[in-house]
């Protein structure tokens, strides 16, 4: 299968290892990976701030570039939700309305694609550490992704998964983190405390944006807990 891999802007600029891991995993599974270089961003920042015309300016070319893709795989639950759930809403009543629905139906979040499209659950990875998993809210509640990453982690050699005592948002929320930093940070502190309760060495997530927020707080507070993307864990040998 030819997989069109959509690497979100912050993964591209800040967490290339996460993107590289996705490419290597998909190629190892025998698929041809293409990465449209011209795609920078899904348009979620203006969309979430309520600026729909500005969001369409960014999202329309993305849609057009994804028009012929056999399967679109997005390395983030948040951007995945943008394309799968919010593009049809954003383009409703425009000339892109049908295309938005078509692309949405062929779009997958990375872990969901592995488990539910490819039927792959064991990637032969080895990561001998105690970890906890953070569910990005968009992936969890917009796309209903909860079991997929856990199934994949269960098959990683040496990995011990300890769940946090509560499912909670990390407090990132895109521009929310900058508009209401005090609330965002307070939420992040709750998240870090929940992760600390598990005694995990690593916080793993499908969403690098959440990890950026969590890691930002951990580093500032000098906490030893580390963060790592799910793809990187799955790409270990």
């Amino acid at each position, binding site marked *: 299968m030819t997989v069109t891999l959509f690497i979100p802007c912050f993964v*591209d600029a800040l967490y*290339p290892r996460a993107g590289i891991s996705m490419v290597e995993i998909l190629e190892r599974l025998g698929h041809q990976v293409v*990465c449209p*270089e011209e795609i*920078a961003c899904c348009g979620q920042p203006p969309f979430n*701030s309520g600026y729909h015309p500005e969001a369409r300016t*960014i999202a329309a070319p993305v849609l057009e570039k994804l028009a012929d893709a056999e399967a679109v795989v997005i390395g983030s639950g948040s951007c995945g939700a943008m394309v799968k759930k919010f593009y049809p809403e954003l383009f409703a009543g425009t000339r892109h309305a049908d295309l938005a629905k078509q692309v949405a139906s062929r779009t997958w979040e990375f872990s969901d694609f592995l488990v539910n499209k490819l039927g792959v659950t064991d990637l032969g990875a080895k990561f001998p550490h105690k970890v906890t998993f953070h569910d990005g809210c968009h992936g969890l509640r917009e796309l209903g992704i909860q079991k997929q990453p856990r199934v994949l982690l269960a098959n990683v050699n040496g990995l011990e998964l300890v769940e946090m005592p509560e499912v909670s948002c990390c407090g990132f929320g895109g521009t929310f983190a900058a508009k209401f930093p005090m609330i965002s940070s307070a*939420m992040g502190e709750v998240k870090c405390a929940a992760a600390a309760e598990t005694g995990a060495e690593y916080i793993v997530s499908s969403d690098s944006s959440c990890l950026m927020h969590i890691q*930002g707080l951990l580093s*500032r507070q000098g906490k030893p807990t580390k963060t790592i993307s799910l793809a990187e864990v799955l790409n270990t040998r």
Partner: protein
Amino acid sequence: MSTSVSEFKTRAAEKTGDLRLRQFIRTALRGYETARDRRKGAFQSWESARQAAAETKWEAVNHLDTHLESLVARLEARGTKVHWASTGEQAREIIAQILRDKKARSIIKSKAMTSEEIHLNHALEKEGFTVVESDLGEFIVQLRHEAPYHIVFPSMHLTRDEIRDLFQKELGDAPSNTPEDLTMVARRVMRQKYIAADVGFTGANFAIAETGMISITENEGNARLTAALPKTMVTLLGIEKVLPRFADLALFLPMLATAGAGQPMTCYNTMYSGPRQAGECDGPEEWHVVLLDNRRTELLADAEQRDALHCIRCGACLNVCPIFRNVGGHTYGTTYSGPVGSVITPHLRGLQEWKHLSNASSLCGACTEACPVKIDLHHHLLQNRRNASAAEPAFFERLAYQIFGILANEPKFWWLAKKLGWLTQPLHGAVKGSAIDPAKAWTKTRDLPPMPMETFKDWWRNRK
């Protein structure tokens, strides 16, 4: 910046800094979650029940006119006096006039968020009436001259010591700081007030169109007494409280208790269909029901967000909301706080003035998941953002997104922006977290991740 947003930010900064209170609220709400999950688990299908409740409310709200007419006709047929109020001011005047007509002096009140919404106590006290809140939590916050912290748990922000000190100061009676002793103080004080009150005032949880009933849910028995002892009873309810059928309560009562407090059923669920009837031995001689619009019809006119009128005020969305948990109820500056408050306040009190509540959300969706009547809460927050930006775009914010759009659509510019970011990264260290740091909103509490020289796209291009 409007005053409500700056006040919101000031209070949010203050409350998020109060680690003791945050922990106190978190512990309480974790206890709630455990109880709620246990009760939800007892349902054969909580999800189907939610869908059914949403459908029932949809039916009620989307035929509101006929249901209201049926409700009112049946109430009136049994001697209840029904009043209609388009605004809070009208409702206050109707109620004050009833009190004047009855030459009433003291009013005993059971919990009603609708009365908070129209600032009833303040208006009645200004006219010289004595108003006593009988719900324990409401009584406590009334003694403190503050608004309820939470629509279901009004005094959840206070410790037993604070309440003991309050009772000592205001009532001169606080034998200890145990919840048991303090509750008994309130019970003693209130007993005589019920008996002496001229008018009993209540809110309502549901109104039944089919049978002409008002249903009140409570745990303490204060509403039962309020509706039993005084000679005159007044009930204020929002027009959206209607349910089509009597039997609908078989579903809604346990769902309200489960979602609201993690209880299988609230202690007293009482349906009133009239004042004291022939052959009955007690109850009010007169019952006045005041139906309140107060811009609910404006929310009704927004078909996209009409389901916000499904709200049964259970408080489940507040309880799970990480924003509410960290900033607390008073920070919102609204009658209805938490996610549902952030959704409806812009409709009830003005979009531009209250849009910040819709922005103050990470859109995590925990509220929508918790809502027993399936209000699409977090998406409504997004719609409020869209409506606010479309009506009055913020100049610099829109400009920023327009520039962002130009960068994102031109790969060369995008590449250049990333490289500039990488190059200027070492300089950022010098100003990090300071007043001139362009990223200070982030860096005040958080580190920024290091930008690698080679981006994903560099790697992709190089390996080809």
